[in-house]
């Protein structure tokens, strides 16, 4: 069974990626005012690392918050109010990581105006600004038709899903994921699949949970798509 699409499209090349974390070369922040200063000057790659690459680097998979700033505010500054305000930020709801920087600084400014003293941490608990080097490589596997996406997802590694569904939003002009961009290339016929992908609130999922949800929503979406027998 296949999905009836308006036109054909180029095959989708499944890629994978590996990441290695590195120090950003910026002084650590030992209090909230220093954090604000460093947020203003750190490369945008740092913000991406502390918000998005947390998904893919080795870490305990059940953290309280999804971004490192909120975790630091909670665990080290012991400022639950700040942690909650930082924790709710979804970077993908913003138009760019520069906007994210402005939002972060605004939240920190607000907190600094509320507290009677500058929140600080003990020596050794400083916030350390990091970034990463990402190496992308071919898996030499391809998708040819929309239904292949559903069937091949279970074979994809978590880092491959990260690359195509999460990291893509940094690469693409409209901030969409690679799967959606490819499906859109078939014209009409893949709308239900695209809507299903857009409906995933992935920021609060682990990659394992994201993979499971992708498979689940595409299974539902493709069973709802009008289908036809594929001609050979």
């Amino acid at each position, binding site marked *: 069974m296949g999905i009836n699409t308006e036109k054909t499209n180029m095959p989708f090349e499944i890629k*994978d990626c*590996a*990441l*290695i*974390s*590195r*120090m950003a*070369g910026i002084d650590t922040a030992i209090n909230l005012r220093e954090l604000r200063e460093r947020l203003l000057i750190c490369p945008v*790659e740092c913000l991406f690392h502390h918000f998005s690459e947390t998904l893919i680097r*080795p*870490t*305990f*998979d*059940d953290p309280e918050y999804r971004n490192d700033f909120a975790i630091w505010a909670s665990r080290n500054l012991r400022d639950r109010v700040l942690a909650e305000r930082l924790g709710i930020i979804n970077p993908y709801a913003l138009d760019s990581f520069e906007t994210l920087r402005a939002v972060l600084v605004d939240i920190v400014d607000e907190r600094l105006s509320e507290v009677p003293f500058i929140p600080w941490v003990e020596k*050794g608990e400083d916030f*350390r600004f*990091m*970034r*990463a*080097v*990402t*190496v*992308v*490589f*071919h*898996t030499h596997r391809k998708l040819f038709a929309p239904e292949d996406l559903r069937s091949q997802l279970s*074979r*994809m*590694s*978590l*880092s491959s899903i990260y690359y195509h569904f999460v990291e893509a939003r940094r690469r693409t002009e409209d901030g969409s994921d690679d799967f959606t961009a490819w499906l859109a290339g078939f014209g009409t016929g893949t709308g239900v699949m695209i809507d299903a992908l857009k409906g995933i609130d992935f920021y609060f999922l682990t990659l394992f949970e994201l993979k499971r949800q992708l498979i689940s929503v595409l299974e539902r979406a493709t069973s709802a798509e009008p289908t036809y027998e594929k001609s050979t």
Partner: protein
Amino acid sequence: MKRVLKDYEPLAGSNAVSQLKQLARDLVGAKVVHVNSTKAGGGVAEILGWLVPLMNDLGLDTSWEIVQGHSEYFQVTKAFHNGLQGNNATLTQRMLEVYEETLTDNANRLRIVLENADFVFIHDPQPAGLLERCNDRSGKWIWRCHIDASHPNRKVWNYLKGKVSAYDASIFSMPDFAQPLVHPQFIIAPSIDPLSDKNCELTETEINNTLQELGIPHDLPILVQISRFDRFKDPIGLIKAFTLLNSSVDARLVLAGGGATDDPEGDAVLEEVKDAAGKNDRIHVLLLPADAHRTINALQRSASIVFQKSTQEGFGLTVTEGMWKGKPVIGGNVGGIRLQVHNHYTGYLVNTPEGAALRARELLRNPVKRERMGLTAQRFVAENFLLTRHLREYLTLMSGLRRGLANYLVAS
């Protein structure tokens, strides 16, 4: 036994192995040399024991060299080691001369292989001075620091900084351990080999036989700390914790470790530990040979709780090993232990002998909680600290270095 990547597929998954092969395509044929100071004893030798053959299996031309030296040289490098960990360390002119002379001898012996390598990984401070003696080097040199260097003795660090600044990059086990340097600093957490003698599955019979051979009755819950006899591992603090615990819960404590050829203080610390244990027949102090991996495996598997009550720690591979065997870990709230032990999930972080005794009592009284934590710990290691992840990060680093460390690269 030499293992190949395929052997790891059942544990790490076919995707993990496939990723390594894809990444390595970019590096096939590259000459890689690892240099450290011992082939037996300690976490670094263990890591290189699997890393080198697996890199070769992926098509990289990889070798492992060690620096050779007399006991005086290892006294100096032990002072470096202690100094990097923040301990007081005296560096005399004579000590520095011994270090420099030994490195010159080693550079003369290793120069050809080092200068022809595409990548040279220098592990820890012992061989750090080799770079400045290889003027015709053509490859990338990376200093791999396995030690918690977050609060180094300034005199020691200033000296070593002069040695490592000229490297192309350095690697630390945790962001907290990194020191400001002029070159890029990468973070790679260590890992364990799940198929090694130290971590593979054992039968109950083998575990029981091992305990019998060591003279440890299996009549009470066993608490185990595996580590070199080193003051930073706080064996005396653990004995104090056990004494506190044993007034309310019956158990046995096993303190076991091997010596390392590059650790001249081990004998003295072992004597201190034996003195502290005194005539308590529930405390078993064992000096094991460097190759007693299956014995260590059996001890960890026999344990109800694994301890690593360090006051300073690099990464703490014994923590990873214990967790891989499904044991909750009570560890010192330091270094890489904090990366692995998550309070109430995989074990407990403690700061004092009293804290260690309290948490041990809690876990010994609650077997359901112990089992749940152990399972969480095992899954955490499976997802993050197996050697496939470690190897992937080395390959990523090499690929990145070769391509100028742009943030975003496409490997062929």
